[in-house]
């Protein structure tokens, strides 16, 4: 899941599945490419559940359309960096999920 959900009615975006758009209440979403975003904050978490590696480095990144996501991120990333979303494995290994990575130079154009 490296796509962002876009409301079919108002165009509002979210990375988090829900029944209705938080902005307009519409029930239909389309998958969109989130493009590149900006890392707003980072944290390295040292107290983690047993099946999560420590430290768990997480970033809060904002993308076009006011959509933000908290996701695991590359250890060299810092707030202010331009990032993209890559596929990653979820903690239980059963679902694909997202990882924040440095945006390739071509992605930033």
């Amino acid at each position: 899941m490296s796509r962002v959900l876009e409301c079919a009615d108002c165009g509002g975006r979210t990375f988090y599945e829900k029944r209705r758009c938080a902005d307009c209440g519409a029930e239909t979403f389309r998958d969109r490419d989130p493009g590149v975003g900006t890392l707003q904050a980072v944290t390295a978490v040292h107290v983690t559940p047993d099946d999560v590696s420590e430290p768990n480095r997480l970033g809060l990144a904002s993308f076009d359309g006011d959509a933000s996501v908290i996701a695991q991120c590359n250890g060299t990333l810092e707030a202010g960096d331009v990032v993209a979303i890559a596929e990653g494995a979820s903690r239980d290994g059963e679902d694909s999920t997202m990882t924040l990575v440095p945006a390739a130079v071509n992605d930033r154009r």
Partner: protein
Amino acid sequence: MIPQEFAAGDTDASPVGFGLPGVGMTAFEAADDRSLLALLETAAERALRDAAVDATEIDSVHVGNMAAEAFNDRSGLANALTASLGAGRASARRIENTSASGASAFHDAVDAVRSGGSAVALAVGSEKMSAADTATATEIISRITHEREYQQGVTLPSFAGLAADRYLAEYDADRRDLARVAVKNHANAANNSYAQFRTPITVDDVLESSAVATPLRLYDCCPTSDGAAAIVVTADAAPVTVEACESAVGVHAIADRRDPLHIESAHAAGRAAYEMARIDPEDVDVACIHDAFTILEWLELEELGFAERGTAWTLTRDGRTAIDGDLAVNPGGGLKARGHPLGATGIAQLVELVWQLRGDVPDGRSTGSPEYGLAINVAGFGNNSVCTVVGANA
């Protein structure tokens, strides 16, 4: 200066005005060898004795608890408590609202009295977290997150670490200022015999403690705790009355916030509570703020209109939220140092406020002669907030 949007305006709401004749709690500890039910019983009996109310007079029992099934392999708490107390004619129910279960149980008790269904309602909150090790407790609590967050291994400290990183980057506060929140709350807890941590700490102690979710360290974070707290609500007035109890929901996935430093549920619950109580933030003399993490004390003070955005840190730096400041914040030590047995916390905040407004605190913890007290109990990292205003009935 109070943000204009919080200034009291014309409203049809009336202060609630129900009596809070009795409160009680157990000392919060890292591990209490009593059972979860025994903790509930102890707090309940202390509140009933304080109120001079017999268990047979109780019309309804409202138990706040988040995760007895996960921590203690236990359910049916409200029925077990009611039978044990001998409150045979009461109705009973359990309220779960994650870390705001306590305040939500109180909210439910107030609603029971407001409806006319109860003349005497007993709200009791408890959690016994010592049955789980830290990793297991972290896992249980992280289950409140959105599935997408959970897949990333996101925990509650994760949200706080990200918020603190953002706040310190965006505003002029520095890391030592944030540590001063913990220093203040530990100093207050030193004078509270019910607090889990009674040893004062220094800024350097905070900065040298182990990293939990950078930039936050161990002393920026509340502990896991065992404990219970109880409060009696009556239709009749008492020396301390509840003037407002309002709650609001927020986003579920925290990244869905338009502003990562905005806790919309705390803002909405606070605004509704001021309106109901017909007061402004500047009328509040003492506040119990949900400081599960030091950064939350600042964010909630801003949401509640005690400071403009990005300036709450100056209240800490200037001593204005200290025990002798113009707004004493967390005089009992807060979640940070009194402890945070999830389902008990929201009621323990009210216990502290009732004691403060009655003057039932030792000199070192006295906030003078407060007229109004405010508590905010937050579920998760703001999925839901419950804001209560209590007043001294002169």
